[in-house]
């Protein structure tokens, strides 16, 4: 074998790849926060809702946590146009990942709510707080603190998982890597650089999240 590694062609494309990394972060960020809103409603609904609501939420969670996200997005992308709903790739991916994230976060957040000490909730009540106020001032800060590590991990997992968007032609990091390597035929070089960018993204995201956790929620996690 006399294949010589040539990184210069890839490095010339670094700005293009970094632009893709930004799209990757956008997809992960949007899916995470939109999914968190769904997850919060899901968790509260599962704890407080009537049988019908609990049943619907359970069906949602079971379905979306037991099928691959990729399959779910394929469905959105290729089946919905048949009923007249056309989605551009980015929207389809974000919706798919959001719905998927919402299902996982329903379960994670439900556990978080259950872990709030009953006494703190009663105290909120006798201090005159409504359910919504106790959610805002007591339950959510508790969840943010106790679930900070698993939620951060989940975000990192979304950063990596968003690479499947490439399958649908979204030009995020992996998508752009595919574009480059099909043009320059330097697959090894391209993907090793992309791997490094992914590592940098997740390390930076983890460190930034750890700092946010430390400053805002007194989470005493180590940064590395």
């Amino acid at each position, binding site marked *: 074998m006399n294949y010589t590694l040539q990184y210069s062609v890839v490095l010339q494309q670094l700005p293009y790849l970094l632009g893709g990394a930004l799209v990757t972060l956008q997809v992960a960020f949007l899916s995470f926060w939109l999914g968190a809103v769904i997850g919060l409603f899901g968790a509260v609904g599962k704890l407080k809702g009537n049988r019908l609501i609990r049943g619907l939420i359970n069906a949602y969670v079971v379905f979306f946590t037991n099928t691959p996200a990729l399959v779910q997005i394929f469905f959105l992308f290729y089946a919905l146009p048949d009923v007249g709903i056309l989605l551009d790739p980015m929207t389809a991916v974000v919706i798919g990942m959001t719905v998927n994230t919402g299902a996982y976060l329903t379960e994670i957040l439900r556990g978080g709510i259950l872990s709030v000490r009953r*006494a*703190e909730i*009663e105290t909120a009540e*006798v*201090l*005159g707080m409504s359910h919504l*106020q106790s959610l805002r*001032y007591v339950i959510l*800060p508790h969840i943010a603190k106790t679930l900070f590590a698993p939620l951060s991990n989940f975000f990192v997992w979304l950063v990596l998982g968003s690479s499947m968007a490439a399958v649908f032609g979204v030009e995020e990091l992996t998508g752009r890597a595919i574009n480059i390597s099909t043009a320059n035929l330097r697959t090894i070089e391209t993907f090793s650089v992309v791997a490094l960018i992914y590592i940098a993204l997740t390390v930076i995201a983890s460190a930034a999240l750890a700092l946010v956790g430390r400053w805002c929620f*007194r989470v005493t996690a180590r940064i590395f």
Partner: protein
Amino acid sequence: MPLLEVKNLAASYGALTVLQNVNLSIEKGEVVSLIGSSGSGKSTLLRVLMGLLKPNAGEVRIDGEKVDYGSRSSLKSIRDRMAIVFQQYNLFQNMDVLKNVTIAPVEIKKRPRADVEREAKAILDRVGLSAKLKSYPDQLSGGQQQRVAIARALTLRPEILLLDEVTAALDPELVNEVLDTVRELAAEGITMLIVSHEMGFVREVSTRVVMMDKGQIVESGTPKEIFENPREPRTSAFVSKILRH
């Protein structure tokens, strides 16, 4: 007119009847202590008063005004007028001391933050915690946490303060710092309903002592009457048992 009046109150946990035919009235400025053996329903009575457990029968009046435990606005109004401190202090773990004390008056009752903070700092100073405003509950001793809980209740400016065994979870050497705080409140004329197993303290601080047994009030009188001349055999049995320690 009594500040708090309880008539024929009954309550249960599911099928278990815990309070029956409870009658009690408290005048403004009184310090009433509830005593009685474990499981007699003392905490339950306070929980019912605060609306944490719905009564099955009877009525509660504050200043003559009947409380409707099924109505949100009525619940809101009793929680404006009464405050409770629990045995396990129950501070919010995610808030520092000052936030714990000011959150309800500022965010719930919408009083101006600057006023509330000034008042809270004065109250925290009075309970000896002015150096701990920025500490979190897990950085405080049990006695300190309990004094924060009392300060939090006081900052609500309640007309009646309910204290449920506020020293029971504390190490012996921390008990007195909390009792001293309560003694001062009593001296200031704050109306209180206290559950306590500290008989020396009950005797000294109470204007009236109420003995409960099996969910009923069996006797009520001045500390002297209850501790020296109880009319009821159940009271004398309880008092002599607990004073022997």
